[in-house]
């Protein structure tokens, strides 16, 4: 396992950070969060054309640049720090990951190059109205037509990340006792997509209604659960990387303010009530950074530890980011709870990241199971 941070990785981080500071700084994030789509297609294209971010962890044979998940985690960290609102997690992690995890070479060849270039925006639709993250809860039905006529999907998906802006939706559906993965074109007849107003306006979700929607089976009619399980684990770690980025940024904000805000003739950061809290937060953020680095390396090496570290990281990242984001508001005092100040954007993202893919106690319970308790 390689855990160190190479010079190349540092350069990647710096260039992503520069790109986001330049093309998607917080004022732009604020503008876009009030839109339905939530991102600027031009910036999305640039991210693909200039930096190759969407394809960073996609093998070269599928049009990507073939770096590992360790590099993608760095990208995700920076996106999380910047509260970038584009469909990166949906397309470059969830959908690309599902295609890679599927055994379907034809589907990989068909879809991955578009995802890698950023031309295709893809997402995975698995959660339904009950909001459960368990594969068992999937009810949306897939029915096979007469031989060769393909499949039709009926039912509803909800909480679909960027579901209304994706042009390719990978749907987890029930084929009798099993689950399978299907590709659905965004313009397919019978598909209705409804954007949902989100608590965290920088992260867009949609409801998708399927009424006899034509769909292409990916892999076999039985292997959806295994693919989904892998995808959710990787997504948990990817989101952990985003959470790390957000937590680090929120901590930086708090510490910076504590140095310059004077009350009672002293910088507030000289009061132990603030100072010791910041120390605790640093401990947490540093520990999270170690965990995310380890987890990313585990994904990159396809280690058997992935399921365990995925739940560990998701639970810990959720606790840490929310803790930091909440304290950041408190340390800022009055301005910290205004709309104008950025603290609430991180606070909302922190909670939304926790609720998405299952919260901290959900993942602790999974972790207990996965380590055999």
């Amino acid at each position, binding site marked *: 396992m390689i855990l160190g941070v190479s010079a190349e990785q540092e350069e990647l981080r710096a260039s992503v950070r520069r790109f986001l500071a330049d093309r998607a700084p917080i004022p732009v994030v604020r503008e876009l969060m009030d839109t339905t789509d939530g991102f600027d297609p031009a910036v999305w294209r640039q991210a693909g054309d200039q930096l190759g971010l969407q394809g960073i962890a996609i093998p070269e044979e599928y049009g990507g640049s073939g770096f590992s998940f360790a590099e993608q985690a760095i990208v995700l960290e920076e996106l999380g720090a910047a509260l970038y609102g584009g469909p990166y997690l949906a397309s470059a992690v969830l959908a690309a990951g599902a295609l890679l995890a599927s055994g379907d070479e034809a589907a990989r060849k068909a879809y991955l190059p578009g995802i890698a270039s950023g031309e295709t925006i893809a997402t995975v639709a698995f959660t339904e109205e009950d909001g459960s993250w368990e594969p068992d809860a999937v009810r949306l039905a897939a029915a096979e037509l007469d031989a060769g006529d393909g499949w039709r999907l009926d039912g509803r998906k909800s*909480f679909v990340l960027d579901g209304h802006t994706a042009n390719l939706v990978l749907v987890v559906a029930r084929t009798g006792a099993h689950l399978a993965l299907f590709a659905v074109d965004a313009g397919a007849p019978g598909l209705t997509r409804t954007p*949902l*107003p989100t*608590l965290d306006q920088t992260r867009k979700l949609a409801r998708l209604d399927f009424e006899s929607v034509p769909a292409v089976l990916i892999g076999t009619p039985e292997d959806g659960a295994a693919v989904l399980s892998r995808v959710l684990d990787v997504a948990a770690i990817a989101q952990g990387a985003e959470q790390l980025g957000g937590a680090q940024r929120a901590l930086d904000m708090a510490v910076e303010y504590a140095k310059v805000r004077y*009350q009672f003739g002293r910088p507030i950061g000289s*009061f132990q009530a603030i100072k010791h809290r910041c120390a605790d937060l640093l401990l947490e953020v540093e520990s999270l950074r170690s965990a995310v680095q380890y987890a990313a390396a585990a994904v990159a090496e396809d280690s058997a530890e992935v399921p365990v570290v995925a739940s560990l990281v998701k639970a810990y990242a959720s606790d840490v980011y929310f803790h930091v984001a909440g304290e950041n508001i408190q340390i800022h*005092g009055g301005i910290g709870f205004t709309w104008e100040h950025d603290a609430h954007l991180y606070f909302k993202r922190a909670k939304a990241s926790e609720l998405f893919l299952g919260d901290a106690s959900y993942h602790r319970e999974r972790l207990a199971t996965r380590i055999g308790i």
Partner: protein
Amino acid sequence: MELDLGPEIAQFRADIRAWITTHAPDGLAELADWNTLITTGGYGYGRRTAATQHEAYRQWEAELLAARLICPQWPEQFGGQGMDAVRVAVFNEELDSAGVPRVNRGMGESLVGPSVIVHGTDEQRAAFLPRIVSGEDVYCQGFSEPGTGSDLAGLQTKGVVDGDEIVITGQKLWTSGAARANKMFVLCRTDPDAEKHAGISFVLIDFTDPAVSYQPVRQMSGAAEFCEDFLDGVRAPLFNVIGGLNNGWRVAMTTLGYERGGSASTLHLGYEREFWELAQTARKRGVSADPLVRQQLAWAYSQVQLMRFSGLRTLAGLAEGRQPGPEASISKLFWSEYHKRLGEIAIGIEGTDGLIRPDGDGYPTTYWQNVFLSSRAGTIYSGTSEIQRNIIAERALKLPREPRPTANGASR
């Protein structure tokens, strides 16, 4: 169990209950859920405000006024009836159980009145107090500024004496109820050379003056309950300076001893109703059998009951003539930290659904999303939790104060 406060109070309770029954207009109780918790940021605030425009409410206000039940804790000569804290508490309890509102005069009643009563001249009392009781004058507060937070005495708004007038220039922040106010009570610095806490004056100004402007400050919850205010050379007669020039800090710190604690026994009521709503939400979402959720709900219920128990104990103490000690700071710390945590529990119970807001323009939220977001302000406004802990430690436990920074110390 109902608190036994002795036969006199029992009689008072019976009388006030009978009076409410007789005088409360029909339909008033149904106009709004008057005693639900309205969290800062004003979820449900609009509906209640609308109800106060209703004829039944106006009639009720008139009845209360006639019976001296507005500002009832004020001395008789100033329009009240000198009600003590125990009776105020009983009055509040009975209003709550009848489902009708207490008509209060906001900060005019709780802050301006006591300051004028204690520090004003007879002429000032005559000029300002009746208009508060009648509702003619509605005050908003001009204390905080962008540069002051916990350190209120660091305020920079200037007050310059010009003949028999004072001219006030500066910026104020966190004013609630600005849109409803026609007056503001302002702290301004009238002696820039004096030590920080000296040189401050307490002035009543006309908030409709053209030299006053204000604009709402939107909060993270989407609501805009507070304003920032610009005082651009507002003039007020020196008559409007309460307690004398440069004595404003003392005036601002005034609250009437006998007023404190009157809400002790009713504070928990809103939280209790809210708790049962949350229990219902948990049931509806099918998580009320989840052991972790049950622990959280039991914890929340306990906290609410602890507020009730503490309120009753405070009240019993008042009835025995004990002055309240650090209860106000403990209570503020308790409910604000409780509510913050409750918001987290509630959003956790909403689970994945908590990701989605209701449809609508602006940033509408569900009740629990609003609690989750707006409760973050509770541990900051009216004295942060950190300031409350300082007060509790220094006043109740007599722990030593922080050393003052030296001129060449680390604070540079």
